[in-house]
């Protein structure tokens, strides 16, 4: 009897669960009450287990398994190295972004029609100074067009492909361009030498070219528009036939990454006075022991325009003459005292060598 009772209970329990299962499958309904009760009952235990696990692991890691610290240290060092490399990469990206922005700004300001290009490779050959850019015939690039940067000329297009072009750099020995100096307007031919500096050839020894003087494209070669910086003279000395003038190319100052290909060039005037692309140059006044030399001297117009020693000396002598009533360039025969300091004199003084007026003879002499 007992045996049947056990079987009966088993069958009832199994049957009840079968009915429950069939109900769920048939009605697609769920017994949410039982589920929610179970989850509610199990959740605190699971949470307790989780915190217990966390505490145990924390204790193990902090106090027992200290050998992991060495491993962790090594891992962190590797991670730090990786982060340093990543930081360097991001800095480079930032520099690239700045350069691209400068290029876009220059592109907006220049009157020439240009297309921006990126240098994607160098041409083969040990002495070759040519690069490939990612713009080609489909972008309107043609052979012979000038390639520039905001700083100056860079080269010219020698081969054009549909999606790329080859650019002969300014430093290639086969490169040549017409240039003219900024200050003395001396024309010459810029040639590449296969190294960092370029040569300005065919400049007569007699003409004056100063070191530090800027050269611009002259527009004579019909490749580069007039008025683009070419470079600054680092060496300018007498040669056997022509002057030896070596320039630092302006267009290569910031490396080779982004360039502009001039599709339609517009000539422009060569700027006067200031050096291009380098910003204002501050020149200190010459060192002098006396404080007077540092005192700004007012010109006739009242403007502090005297900047050279000769100017200051001229102004000083002029004031000396004025204080002593001597007018230079006249046939008065009077010479002023050049040793006086005009800044220390407040009233007119007599000149050192004035022609003596005719004095009446004394009475005693007349009697003798």
């Amino acid at each position, binding site marked *: 009897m007992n045996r049947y*009772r*056990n079987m009966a*209970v*088993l069958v009832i*329990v*199994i049957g009840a*669960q*079968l009915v*429950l*299962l069939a109900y*769920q*499958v048939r009605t697609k309904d*769920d*017994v949410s009450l*039982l*589920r929610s*009760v*179970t*989850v509610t*009952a*199990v959740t605190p*235990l*699971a949470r*307790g*287990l*989780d915190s217990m*696990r966390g505490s145990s692991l924390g204790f193990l890691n902090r106090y027992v398994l200290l050998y992991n610290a060495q491993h962790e240290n090594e891992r962190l060092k590797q991670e730090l190295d990786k982060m340093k490399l990543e930081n360097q990469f991001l800095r480079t990206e930032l520099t690239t972004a700045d350069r691209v922005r400068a290029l876009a700004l220059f592109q907006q300001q220049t009157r020439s029609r240009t297309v921006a290009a990126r240098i994607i490779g160098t041409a083969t050959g040990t002495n070759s100074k040519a690069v490939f850019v990612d713009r080609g015939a489909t972008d309107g690039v043609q052979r012979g067009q000038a390639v520039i940067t905001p700083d100056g000329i860079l080269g010219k297009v020698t081969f054009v492909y549909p999606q790329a072009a080859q650019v002969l750099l300014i430093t290639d020995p086969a490169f040549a361009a017409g240039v003219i100096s900024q200050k003395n307007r001396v024309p010459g031919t810029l040639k590449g030498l296969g190294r960092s500096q370029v040569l300005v050839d065919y400049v007569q020894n007699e003409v004056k070219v100063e070191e530090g003087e800027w050269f611009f494209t002259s527009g004579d070669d019909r490749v580069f528009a007039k008025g683009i910086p070419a470079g600054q003279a680092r060496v300018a000395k007498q040669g056997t036939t022509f002057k030896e003038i070596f320039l630092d190319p302006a267009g290569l100052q910031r490396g080779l990454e982004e360039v502009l290909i001039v599709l339609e060039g517009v000539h422009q005037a060569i700027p006067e006075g200031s050096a291009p692309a380098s910003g204002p140059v501050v020149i200190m006044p010459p060192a002098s022991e006396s404080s007077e030399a540092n005192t700004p001297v007012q010109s006739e117009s009242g403007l502090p325009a005297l900047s050279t020693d000769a100017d200051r000396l001229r102004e000083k002598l002029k004031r000396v003459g004025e204080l002593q009533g001597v007018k230079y360039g006249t046939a008065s025969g009077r010479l002023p005292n050049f040793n006086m300091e005009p800044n220390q004199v407040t009233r007119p003084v007599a000149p050192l060598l004035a022609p003596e007026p005719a004095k009446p003879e004394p009475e005693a002499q007349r009697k003798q």
Partner: protein
Amino acid sequence: MTELSDQILMTSPRTGKISRFRIVWQIFIPLAAIAFQVNVPLFFRYLSYLELPLLVTVYFSLMRRNPIGGTLIGASIGLLQDALSQQPLGIFGMVKTLVGYFSASMSIKIDVDNSMVRCALAFFFFFFHQFLTWVLQRALLAQPYEFKATQTLLFGLLNAIVAVPLFLILDKLKERG
């Protein structure tokens, strides 16, 4: 019969002693086993092979030595397990009901305090549990559940190994006297 078989098989059902547990443990231990199964494999995936609710079912059923008690224990733990699964309620419930019934029935005939017996029973019931689950899921729910016999045997062995110390720990929770 040999001496060993004498030790394993009891001559009379009455010689087996019924173990009792406090009601707190009877509630807490199955819940803890289910919580373990739910929570721990999230962080220790290799522990997912442990079927602690099954081992607890087997243990309590063996200790009760009462098929009706085993049936109810198995049904309760199985339904709780179902409630935390994505399948309809009843699959684990029915399987563990049968496990509870059979383990309790076996405990009448054999000495379940022997570690070797416990290990063998744990192994057997794990395999039985997995196989029956596969049958019911395919037959009643038409789920494409795959039964991997080799893996099941291996996991059964591992569960059996865990069962021995686990049962010894649970023995400490028995009411004395």
